[in-house]
């Protein structure tokens, strides 16, 4: 029970920070719409819906990456990991709280992006929406862990895409092909691994 309230307190803090700064979500929204517009011009006329759907996944992954890069900015700039890991909360609660906040931003961006995609390209179906929802879980759980790694390094913004994109390839496969069972499998495996591993990423001891 305390675990849930710890997670809630941490996630609420992140939503509050975003409400104040208004940086992450607006940039994700603008980015995803701009990307879809680029794709309209990148795709030749009369391209199939399947091709457009493939590009949707590319847009979503890069949008998520944008959000993940910003996820730990406050923690990094003000050394807040020091304060957070000294509290008695389980370290994995810090990961879960952050993953929930990132998920909220990503879903918010998609609530705009998916209808926009449907209007622009007519390639949206129920299965894709379900796949996007499942993929979001995998993206946010793994991405949050790797985001915490990336902010520890000197390269930071540069490092996260390098770490994360190879991990995102199976998500794209599952998403484009609509293999929902595969996405569930991916989410289960890597969410569990991220949950167990986060402690080692933020704490030396």
């Amino acid at each position, binding site marked *: 029970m305390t675990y849930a309230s710890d997670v809630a307190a941490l996630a609420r803090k992140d939503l509050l920070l975003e409400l104040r700064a208004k940086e992450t979500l607006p940039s994700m929204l603008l980015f995803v719409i701009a990307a879809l517009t680029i794709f309209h011009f990148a795709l030749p006329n009369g391209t199939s819906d399947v091709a457009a759907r493939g590009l949707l996944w590319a847009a979503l992954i890069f949008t998520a990456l944008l959000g993940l890069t910003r996820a730990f900015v406050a923690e990094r700039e003000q050394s807040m990991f020091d304060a957070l890991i000294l509290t008695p909360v389980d370290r994995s609660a810090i990961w879960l709280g952050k993953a929930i906040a990132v998920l909220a931003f990503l879903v918010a961006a998609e609530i705009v992006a998916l209808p926009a995609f449907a209007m622009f390209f007519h390639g949206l179906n129920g299965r894709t929406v379900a796949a996007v929802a499942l993929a979001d879980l995998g993206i946010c759980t793994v991405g949050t862990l790797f985001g915490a790694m990336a902010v*520890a390094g000197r390269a930071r913004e540069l490092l996260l895409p390098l770490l994360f994109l190879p991990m995102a390839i199976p998500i794209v496969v599952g998403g484009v092909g609509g293999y929902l069972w*595969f996405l569930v499998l991916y989410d289960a495996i890597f969410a569990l691994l991220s949950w167990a591993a986060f402690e080692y990423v933020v704490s030396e001891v």
Partner: protein
Amino acid sequence: MHLKLPALAAACTGLFGLAVVFAFFYAPADADQGLSQRIFYFHVPLALTSYACFGWGAWKALKYLRGRDERADLESYVAIHQGVIFGALTLLTGSIWARISWGVWWSWGEDELVLFLVLFLFYCAYFMLRFSVDPGPARANMSAVYALFGVVLIPVSFLAIRLSKQFIHPVVFKLQGPQMTGAQFFTFCVCLAAMLTLFATMYAIELAGKRLDCSLRELKELLS
């Protein structure tokens, strides 16, 4: 350690000579592909050795996370370093093979080749991570976590690549052709043994070098 390294190197040289002789002169030529099929005896053992390296690296990573022993961190790093070298060679030989068999330098139809591209990207980022973080327990922790993600990513990616062919490439290439004959299989085993010994030797050499570096720097520190 002092005795093991020369012995390993000798075994490696011997096995490699044997492997070359077997692969080019002993193994019967393939009915369909002729001479070019012989790259199989190097390509596949390279790939398997690369898996072994990543697996060993992850095992050492797990050991590090359990005991926080600095040596395990170094061992994990060296194993993954070797894995990336063998992986790059796998990509190279695979590409040559694709050129000979199908006339293209790259084929998305070959699962293993695509998987190695993904793994190559993943493990190159491992080095970026390591070089970007200052040495110490934090870096060792992160490297270990990343190495563990790597071994889990291997089967998941493999499954994903298999799945992807159903919608990207409906045609499935038949790579293996007919079953290996006894002589072919024996040659393959010799080549695999040679490759694994090569890994063990290079691993031992790099590790010894890195450890020497460390002790030298510690010595310098003490003297200053």
